[in-house]
């Protein structure tokens, strides 16, 4: 019996290691490739033994800064994502609170409408939205990448279900003390709803940080383009230099990976929530 257990344990670890290497190899290829001279990246792509660079060089990194405005892309990505996340947290949580706790005419059918809007993906409305912002003269700006994405039906729904699950007693006590809805929301409800704020922030951040379709449609100048578009343009910018592209990739993903490592628990929790709530 014990021997059988050891073998089954070993088998689990073996399988996991095989899968782990599939996840690690492309990442290692990018990381190590970013330190290699360009011709070696492609030449050694197939040799797992020569994944490690013979000598480390920062040359590719210098190249990236010389060839494209990397810091501009980075700033744009951070700025756009942060505005959407922060604006979204405020606007959607307020609306959800109104749906969950306040009495007002039209509430119930508007809630139904919000739930229905959840199934419309950006892709389904991208074309008329593109037309709309063209008419508004918003193309090629920051706000065309921010404003349409602040209000979010799924975020409202996540906040709504969370607020419903909060005990009413706290709010009742504050109401008896004479606090109005604003005070109650900001002083009592919001501080007790940190998990849902974290979930919504992370899910929105992940979507926006990686967004390619919309920025591709509505921007054309480097000044407002975010990182995903940056790497797409960089890839198509001749001469094709894999070392440079990998250096770009490493710099692009490192900040998010750091945040992920620090707040791993929250990331995993947030994604798990989508399964329960969706």
């Amino acid at each position: 019996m014990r021997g059988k257990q050891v073998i089954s344990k070993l088998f689990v670890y073996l399988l996991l290691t095989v899968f782990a290497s599939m996840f690690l190899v492309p990442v290692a290829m990018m990381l190590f490739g970013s330190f290699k001279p360009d011709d070696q990246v492609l030449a050694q792509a197939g040799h797992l033994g020569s994944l490690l660079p013979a000598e480390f060089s920062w040359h590719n990194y210098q190249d990236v800064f010389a060839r494209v405005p990397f810091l501009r892309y980075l700033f744009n990505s951070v700025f756009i994502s942060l505005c959407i996340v922060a604006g979204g947290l405020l606007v959607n949580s307020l609306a959800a609170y109104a749906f969950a706790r306040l009495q007002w005419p039209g509430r119930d059918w508007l809630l139904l409408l919000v739930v229905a809007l959840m199934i419309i993906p950006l892709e389904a409305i991208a074309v008329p939205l593109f037309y709309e912002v063209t008419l508004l003269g918003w193309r090629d700006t920051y706000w065309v990448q921010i404003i349409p994405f602040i209000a979010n039906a799924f975020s409202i729904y996540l906040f709504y279900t969370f607020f419903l699950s909060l005990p009413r007693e706290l709010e009742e006590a504050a109401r008896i003390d004479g606090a109005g809805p604003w005070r109650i929301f900001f002083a009592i409800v919001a501080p007790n709803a940190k998990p849902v704020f974290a979930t919504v922030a992370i899910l929105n951040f992940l979507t926006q940080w990686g967004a390619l379709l919309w920025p591709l449609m509505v921007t054309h100048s480097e000044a407002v383009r975010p990182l995903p578009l940056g790497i797409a343009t960089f890839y198509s910018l001749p001469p094709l230099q894999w070392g440079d592209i990998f250096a770009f990739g490493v710099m692009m993903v490192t900040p998010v990976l750091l945040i992920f490592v620090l707040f791993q628990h929250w990331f995993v929790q947030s994604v798990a929530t989508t399964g329960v709530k969706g």
Partner: protein
Amino acid sequence: MTSAGHQADKRNARLAWLFALPALLGLFCFVLLPFVLSIIISFTNLRLGSPLPLEFMGFSQYQRIFTDQAFLAALRNNSLFALVVVPLQTGLALLLALLINRPLRGMAIFRSLFFMPVVFPLSLVAVVWILVFAPGPQGLLNQLLGTITLGSWQARDFLHDSVWALPAISLTSIWQGVGFQMVILLAALQGIPHELYEAARVDGANRWQQFVCITLPQLRNAIIFVVLVTTILAFRLFDQVQIMTQGGPNNATTTVMYEAVNSAFGSQQVARASAMTVVFFTIVLLITLLQRTVSRHERVIE
């Protein structure tokens, strides 16, 4: 007294509207309005910068796209992609979740590792995988397959091969997305009450019987959800195609969204592109309704 209460009610209702207004306004302007517009526009001849007057065209945009070889190829590719990716990715996610759920050391590290690509933007993943699929015996995947088959593998240019390009994009997508599904299934696995397994063990059920009779039925809703999300994602496919193949070779990897963006953006044919996104939305809606029916069916049984 009642009048004062009425007054307060009215004030509170106004305040509630104020709470909800910014979000409702945003949803109206940037989701509902464009959605309604997309249906209306799809029945016209709207084209950016066109000198022709705007006309109602009935279903002719739809007739055109359904006789357009590229769009039909796109529909076929999306469906094929879904047929391949949904079972593979769900199956792999389930396998990984089951492995990680074992009470062994180091599982947290594996979980983070498998989840890691989820925080990678798809555009970056696509670029990195172009090199994995590099043509010639030097390419990583070609080399690997050569080693596995003891040299009998003929090196291919995966992304420029009409047979291999779509599978290559599928593999890339699974690599990036499987961690997301795994985490959802893992949470569902951990929600299964231990008593069920203990009772089964008392009854003498082996591992496989426990899996089939307890784990799978208990995971049913989570699996249905994961299948739904992955299917919809399959029809949204765009980033990988844009970067890895531009729809080629010979429309072998073009997708509905890729065609729509090209029509709207490349040739300014907003009406045609709108018709395509209406078709896309109809597919999403059908998939969602199907999932709802399947889930509800289960609730009735319970």
